[in-house]
């Protein structure tokens, strides 16, 4: 049965692309981290371990990432279950609002929360003082708790989507079986549904943790003013003149190892069990009536979407139209100045918008296609070393964007391929960086498509590529569209690699916003941020309309 298959070159090419894409920065990273003045040396590791501020930053990073994961699951899992499996009122709206939170770049959320919960000028604290007459602020966003809160607000949608997509695939008949045997509805949820979504929860947790580990913008905006660092802000500082790139590479290695361990752990915990109960066949999905529980459920959802969407966008809208964002919105304070400045006077705006759009569409298209192909290869064990495919595709999540950027910077500022100074280096960075998300989404998609459908096709004599095209692709279509949207949004949100790799001609919107933040130009940030979100929504909604699928996992 081992005849030559036309699909082999396709698998080979995709795998080779992956190896080059992921391998090159990894090799550079390792090489640089052990390079001394006289050949191989561990001096950078020694220096990093001895550096007290770095050890503190590492600890802060781990604390932040751990809790971000916990909070993200605590928010995302119930929300996903409520949307997918219960008769919660306003489910469609809820899903749309979670999507709004998902497309919000974390750094934009962080800026908004500075205006909301800064201890003195923050709108919520002012309200708190006015209402209670208290002297002290209710919340201080410039703390570790504040940081975790804001990061989780924009990370939980990962969990939400992963669990939501899985829940959509669990047929109600397994749950019905349990119910017929006399289990109450919450017992069903706990003993049947929960174990079935456990892999998605764990994956969601891991993705949240890894997102938080690599995050740069939010710590730069919320931690630095409070006088504490995370690893990414420290690493970023190492690229200021005179650069200490080797040290940065050494500091990145523990993160890489942590990720490898987390992924191995995930595999150990989930790998051997079969989850085909989450299958393509099967019957209808019925909704669980919430009864009186609907009230606390609605309050919980409202709190989440208010924190992630209503309040931040409210304060951004206010800042966009007021001379002084911290003052009440009176006629005197009203102005269009920020809009005219941002679009007509600030010369960086227009080219940044064009660059961002170009990169977003290009990266999403190439990235989604590649991710789908790779996930398929790994799932169906199409090449030798398919186990490595998954690891490689997921590995960039362990490399903080800044470090990835420097590896790429070094790799692509010298022959044979000089990409620095062009949009292509950002493209390569984005494809690499977004691969884990695209891959995870595609992997979940293929996991849910039982191999027997394809086997049926093969038995009837179709080649692998034909099976892929005629059976797998239609089944996977919505998953691939979802991956496209994920990647597109990821590119729009991207800051940490862009901040190293841009040149003035290749600035993207996130970099422009970060520049503005460092100068404290809240009005212009608000204008550009609102525009950015509107742009993202238009593109994502257009994709949905064209391909007929709500990428956040709805089927209504």
């Amino acid at each position: 049965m081992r005849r030559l298959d036309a699909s082999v070159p396709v698998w080979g090419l995709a795998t080779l692309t992956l190896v080059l894409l992921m391998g090159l920065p990894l090799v550079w990273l390792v090489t640089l981290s052990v390079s001394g003045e006289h050949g191989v040396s561990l001096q950078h590791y020694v220096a990093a371990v001895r550096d007290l501020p770095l050890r503190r930053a590492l600890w802060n990073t781990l604390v932040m990432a751990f809790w971000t994961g916990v909070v993200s699951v605590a928010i995302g899992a119930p929300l996903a279950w409520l949307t997918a499996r219960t008769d919660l009122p306003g489910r469609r709206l809820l899903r749309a609002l979670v999507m709004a939170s998902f497309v919000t770049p974390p750094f934009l959320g962080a800026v908004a929360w500075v205006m909301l919960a800064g201890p003195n000028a923050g709108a919520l604290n002012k309200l708190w003082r006015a209402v209670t007459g208290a002297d002290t602020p209710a919340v201080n966003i410039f703390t570790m708790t504040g940081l975790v809160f804001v990061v989780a607000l924009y990370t939980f949608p990962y969990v939400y989507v992963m669990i939501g997509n899985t829940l959509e695939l669990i047929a109600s008949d397994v749950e019905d079986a349990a119910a017929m045997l006399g289990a109450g509805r919450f017992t069903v949820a706990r003993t049947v549904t929960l174990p079935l979504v456990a892999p998605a929860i764990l994956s969601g947790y891991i993705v949240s943790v890894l997102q938080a580990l690599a995050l740069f913008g939010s710590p730069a905006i919320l931690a630095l003013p409070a006088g504490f660092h995370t690893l990414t802000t420290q690493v970023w500082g190492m690229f200021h003149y005179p650069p200490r790139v080797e040290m940065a590479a050494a500091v990145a290695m523990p993160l890489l190892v942590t990720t490898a361990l987390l992924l191995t752990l995930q595999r150990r915990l989930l790998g051997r069990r079969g989850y085909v109960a989450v299958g393509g066949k099967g019957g209808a999905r019925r909704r669980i009536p919430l009864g009186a529980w609907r009230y606390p459920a609605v309050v919980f959802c409202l709190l989440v979407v208010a924190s992630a969407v209503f309040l931040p966008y409210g304060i951004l809208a206010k800042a966009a139209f007021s001379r002084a964002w911290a003052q009440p919105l009176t006629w005197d304070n009203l102005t269009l100045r920020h809009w005219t400045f941002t679009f007509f006077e600030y010369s960086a705006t227009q080219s940044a918008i064009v660059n961002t759009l170009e990169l977003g569409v290009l990266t999403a298209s190439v990235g989604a296609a590649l991710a789908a192909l790779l996930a398929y290869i790994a799932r169906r064990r199409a090449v030798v070393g398919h186990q490595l495919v998954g690891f490689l595709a997921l590995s960039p999540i362990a490399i903080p964007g800044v470090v990835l950027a420097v590896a790429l910077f070094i790799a692509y500022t010298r022959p044979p391929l000089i990409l620095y100074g062009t949009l292509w280096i950002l493209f390569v960075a984005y494809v690499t960086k977004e691969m884990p998300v695209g891959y995870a989404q595609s992997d979940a998609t293929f996991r849910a498509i039982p191999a027997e459908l394809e086997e049926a096709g093969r038995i009837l004599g179709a080649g692998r590529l034909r099976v892929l095209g005629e059976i797998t692709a239609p089944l996977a279509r919505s998953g691939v569209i979802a991956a496209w949207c994920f990647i597109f949004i990821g590119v729009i949100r991207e800051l940490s690699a862009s901040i190293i790799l841009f040149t003035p001609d290749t600035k993207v919107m996130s970099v422009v916003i970060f520049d503005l933040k460092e100068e404290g130009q809240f009005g212009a940030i608000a204008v550009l941020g609102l525009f950015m979100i509107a742009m993202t929504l238009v593109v994502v909604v257009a994709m949905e309309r064209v391909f007929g699928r709500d990428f956040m996992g709805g089927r209504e």
Partner: protein
Amino acid sequence: MKVVTLLLLAVLTAASPAAAQDARVDAARKEGKLVWYTSLALPSAEKVAKLFEARYSGIKVEVHRTGSQRILQRVMQELQANIKNVDVIHTSDAGHYVLLKDKKLLLKYTPAGADRFPPGFKDKDGYYYGLRATVNVIAYNTKVVPAAEAPKTWKDLLAPKWKGKLVTAHPGYSGVIATHVLALSHLLGWDYFKALGQQSVMIVQSAVDPSGVVASGERPVAVDGGDYTFYQSKKAGNPVEIVYPKEGVPLVVSPTAIAAFSSRPNAAKLFTDFTFTKDVQQVLADSEGLYTGHPDVTYPADKPKLGDLKLLSVDAEELEKRSEEIKRRFVEFFGA
């Protein structure tokens, strides 16, 4: 007779500086644009660029505004990749120009009229000139802090009552602040910063930002920042008052220079000359509240004269040499 006059006029015109100027402008127009890496506050920088574009149609100014230290990083990082993008480099860290000059990255060029500027605005070798100046000050929010209780001196900021009320910008971002830290370390010693670091100071990046933080009331008192940023904020109607401490105020002269590797040298020279004209220097003084080295510029009546202030200057060479130390100590004292 008339003909002779006309002829004479024609000859005179042809040989006049105006004609030479025209040739320069034409050469600059052929280059079409110039790239300006600048640490001048964004709205001010865009204003200067728009003035230039209005004066010389067909030559676009690409403004790339960020902090002084980021600009140096960008220039060096791009050079390492052999990208020659920048034409005019303007930061607030005079030390940068010592470094860039040593590395032979600056074009020797004296902007028209800059020879009349005071010595503190001129490089002795003629590579860079001070485009503008500011002094670092204390500022406070008048809604939160009554004038009588406001800090009057740098050392007043160390009083326990200011704990958690202060904001500083960062020398790792801003040349204005790097200069400030060095100048005050001479005057008050590092112990001053060590003690200040114990005050739970909020840390922002740009020397422009403390003015925004104080205006919003997030922190009522700024321990540094260019006086022009507070001046603008005050003019815009914010409840901000400026204190010029009697112990002395660090003077920051922000140089500008043309990159030796500039691929648009004519546009770069034209633009540099333009920024040193009395008109532009007067704009910097009037609407931005900056000080300049131009001897003919007049200042708003509500700004103190530089001559009336006790100025603390730093040596550019020392600033260059101790740049790392300044940043390291700041991070040690303030945490980030």
